[in-house]
């Protein structure tokens, strides 16, 4: 019996969210008295044995060219075979873009109950109950999984990565791999920037910034503190910033450790996408802005005055001239 963790990669490197899944799955194996094992697909640039420090004992490597890019159908069949080899009773994904593509398929294939977006380890004292955020972060649901094999996808930024000592046994696994039906023709990545979905810190701007030409100070702050940049819906809709930066109910939902909202009033739809952030800072000149009710720290003031002063203070703190 095992907890089998899917290790997700981008360009041959393990994603940050997979370290969270590995830590979560290893802890869960300890909790349920089973073995923590993992599966990785396609070519990799990583030292797989070293991933043992996240608690995983064995890693199945299915190395086939057909698995170098995501085709959810092909991935599902490969992971199902790894689950069989590993005698997995629990399969763990990250609820990242690839997890959202593959975990539901695997659930339907194996008739294994899926909880997507778990925010904590299951309660196994009385059944198998997993907590997840629902109503776009406005509440949590406790879901009981009623099937012998269970699938959990862990919400990004919800479970602390824990690394110790240890080496994993790497087992090359030969399985039937179908030919992909999906052909990737181009990948457009914003290089050198932290992906918003994986960012620990996010600096976000709203309509209060008056125009795209005023984003310099937002980008400067983001760079100073190692943050990704984001924006509210009206900003994306006005094409001041690209759509993929839009956070909120209909954009990306994020839960970074720090979310700094500048010139954003905090509509209920915007809050739904960011309310699980651990520390929320609001800078807005309107003291009645609803965002202050959801914030941990705030300044009622003009962003054009406050933000450059904050940037100067951060530089001073970091000893940057």
């Amino acid at each position, binding site marked *: 019996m095992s907890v089998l963790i899917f290790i997700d990669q*981008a360009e041959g490197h393990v994603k940050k969210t997979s370290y969270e899944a590995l830590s979560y799955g290893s802890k869960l194996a300890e909790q349920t008295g089973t073995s923590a094992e993992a599966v990785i697909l396609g070519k990799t640039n990583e030292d797989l044995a070293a991933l043992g420090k996240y608690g995983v004992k064995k890693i199945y490597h299915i190395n086939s060219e057909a698995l170098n890019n995501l085709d959810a159908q092909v991935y599902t069949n490969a992971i199902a075979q790894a689950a069989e080899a590993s005698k997995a009773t629990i399969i763990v994904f990250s609820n990242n873009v690839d997890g959202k593509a593959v975990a539901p398929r695997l659930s339907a294939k194996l008739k294994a109950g899926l909880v997507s977006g778990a925010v904590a380890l299951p309660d196994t004292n009385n059944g198998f109950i997993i907590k997840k955020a629902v*109503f776009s972060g406005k509440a949590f649901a406790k879901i009981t999984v009623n099937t012998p094999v269970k699938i959990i996808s862990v919400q990004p930024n919800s479970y602390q990565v824990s690394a110790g000592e240890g080496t994993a046994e790497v087992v090359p696994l030969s399985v039937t791999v179908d030919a992909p039906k999906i052909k990737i*023709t181009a990948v457009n990545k914003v290089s050198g920037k932290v*992906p918003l979905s994986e960012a620990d810190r996010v600096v976000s701007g709203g309509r209060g910034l008056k125009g795209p030409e005023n984003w310099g100070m937002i980008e400067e702050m983001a760079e100073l503190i190692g943050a990704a940049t984001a924006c509210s819906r009206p900003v994306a809709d006005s094409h001041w910033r690209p759509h993929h930066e839009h956070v909120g109910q209909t954009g990306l939902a994020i839960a970074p*450790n720090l979310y700094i909202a500048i010139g954003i009033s905090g509509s209920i739809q915007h809050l739904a996408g960011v309310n699980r952030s651990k520390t929320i800072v609001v800078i807005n000149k309107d003291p009645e802005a609803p965002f202050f009710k959801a914030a941990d720290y705030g*300044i*009622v003031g003009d962003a054009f005055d*406050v933000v450059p002063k904050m940037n100067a203070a951060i530089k001073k*703190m970091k000893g940057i001239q």
Partner: protein
Amino acid sequence: MKILVCISKTPDTTAKIAFTDNNTKFDTNGVQWIINPYDEWYALVRAIELKEKDAATVIHLCTVGAADAEPIIRKALALGGDEAIRVNAESQDSFYIASQIAEVAKPVGYDLIFTGKETIDYNGSSIGGMVAELLNLPYVSLATKFDLAGTKATITREIEGGEEICEVDLPLVVSCQKGMAEQRIPNMRGIMAARTKPLKVIEPAAIDALTSITGFELPPPKAGVKLVPADNPEELVRLLHEEAKVI
């Protein structure tokens, strides 16, 4: 070409979230119901745009829900669907819903099945993938663009920190999000036409759900905002560094 758009009924984005029966049921008292925004704004509108380019296209809508889902189905028909199918069952879990949709789709053989990327109530992001698996079709999730040339679809999908463009032949299942299309408002002609469009009600297939909801809870309230005077932003930086330890 035949397109199936999966539609879900969800509480309005501004609905107050509360629970009853010892926190085991969503409190529907005073809740306004809408079409799940991802289903409406992106999946359905993109399907309508495809039909506008190729008049031979037929759009079917499918929802799994009780009779109280009919107003939102009529609204979807007013936007532009040709006919709707309601599977007369209360939702149990995503596998239950996906299985009902797959049962509806199987005999028809749709070229394209669109879902929203998630519903704004249970945020599962699961229906599209499950339907695709049950029908043994390719699945492209989190699509932000969709174009069709003959039977070849060119799709842009979200990846971490960017996007990926892929090609895949029909039939397939796609989950849709922002970028696919722009929100529309039904016009009077659409609303009138929707009244007479077919809305077929069918009984559910016998499917066992794989999961069940044990209870709900609300997040603990925030302790309250700590306000720093506007003339002292340096103090905010200090607090973030020394107290919150986030920078």
